[in-house]
């Protein structure tokens, strides 16, 4: 599974005539980041991570980023559900309250 990505070439309808004939849209097209309501954020400790892929398998939003050397979490799409932290067999992911740290 690919992690979600924003389709920057998406064009909103420019007139009534350009709107679809019913309320439908091409599947799998994301037009904006979607994670604004997160209360807790998962923070991954790469030193403890054994790359077992369990978090990648179960993340409902596909927000586990495997593109780099270490795994990371894509905060543009992570909703903060905490399933990854709960399931992580090496306890490499901890949930931190949003806003407690200073970015």
């Amino acid at each position, binding site marked *: 599974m690919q992690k979600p990505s924003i389709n920057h070439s998406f064009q909103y309808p420019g007139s009534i005539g350009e709107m679809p004939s*019913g*309320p439908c849209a091409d599947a799998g097209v994301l037009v904006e980041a979607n994670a604004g309501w997160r209360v807790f954020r998962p923070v991954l400790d790469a030193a403890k991570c054994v790359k077992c892929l369990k978090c990648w398998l179960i993340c409902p939003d596909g927000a586990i980023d495997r593109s780099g050397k270490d795994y990371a979490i894509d905060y543009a799409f992570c909703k903060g559900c905490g399933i990854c932290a709960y399931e992580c067999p090496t306890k490499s992911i901890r949930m931190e309250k949003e806003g407690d740290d200073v970015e």
Partner: protein
Amino acid sequence: MTTLSKDLAASRQFISANDAVSYGVRLCRPEVIAAYPITPQTTVVEKLSEFVANQEMDCQYVNVESEHSAMAACLGAALMGCRTFTASSSQGLLYMCEMLHYVSGSRLPIVMMNANRTVAAPWNIYGDHRDSIAMRDAGWLQLYVESAQEALDTVIQAYKVAENHQVMTPVMVCLDGFVLTHTYEVVKVPSQAEVDRFLPPYAPTENRLDLAAPKSCCISVSPEWQTEYRYKQHAAMQAAKKIIGDVDAAFGAQFGRRYGGLLEEYRCEDAEYVLLMMGTIAGTARLVVDKLREGGVKAGLVKIRSFRPFPREEIVRLAQGVKGIGIVDRDISFGYEGALGTEVKGAVQGAAPAINFIAGLSGRDVTKDNIEAMYRKVIDLARGQAEEEIQFVGLRWEQW
């Protein structure tokens, strides 16, 4: 399209209006029917289940546990690009209500038959329009018919209207319970080949589920975009006004029967006193008009076939030069007046004095005498006599 061994040949049959609807549906070749039985609709879906069981229709017949599920199943099938049919009545239609809005908002051209029956309480299985009128704003076209032949023909027309890409809106074909649904008459059943020529297979728009071009359908739409979808629904209904007339005319050219499109006028050319109504009451009222005309009274009647979209312009034109009008409602919006009364009076805007007659509730007979009395009251009103604006026809202990 599968060719079935028992393709219908043209015939004349002595059948009920419910059977006529079933033949009309069969001739339209729906691919999915999902239905739940309710009096007085039951014999429609029974007959269709027989057609399917006897392999006279190439169709998936889905037995469901409720009317809500029936319409939900039709919605799913329609999203897959199938032509679909269902039927209901009264309490069943009310139970279907949520899905009626879902289907019209999703712009799926489902056709359903409604056997008009009152709604409880008091419990009663007989006919009036209070069930479908309660669904007025569900976003469906509503066509009311007068005879078994019109019922069969209107089902065929309904698919042609609904599936027009300018419309793509579901259609409810309404038949008065028992008085029409269970009354037998000679009906011309057209041949399958003739109907195939009139009604090509359903061609969906891009608003469908398709593995080759995956779509999210029935999507959430934010406040920033919802108004535009509602505008489109309204525009489609407005476009349907012309298309209902065009389809009726094309049907007439091919089959030799037409019904006036949005409404039918009877002896209205020079009419001074006009009653407007929907459904079977028009059949009786024609006789009364003839009798009044023989006595020198310039009476006319308007049978409104399409309640949604509403034929405002046609009614405004008809009201010109008329001295008095009566609107016959088989429903009542408690605390105001009959639904048709509201629409007609809103359209004519006082061009002629009007009385709203509430009649035929819950299967109460509307007799020729009742209808003649309505005309007399409209004439009295036009001559300046005081008349109540809303009158319950035949109310016990009142002078009628």
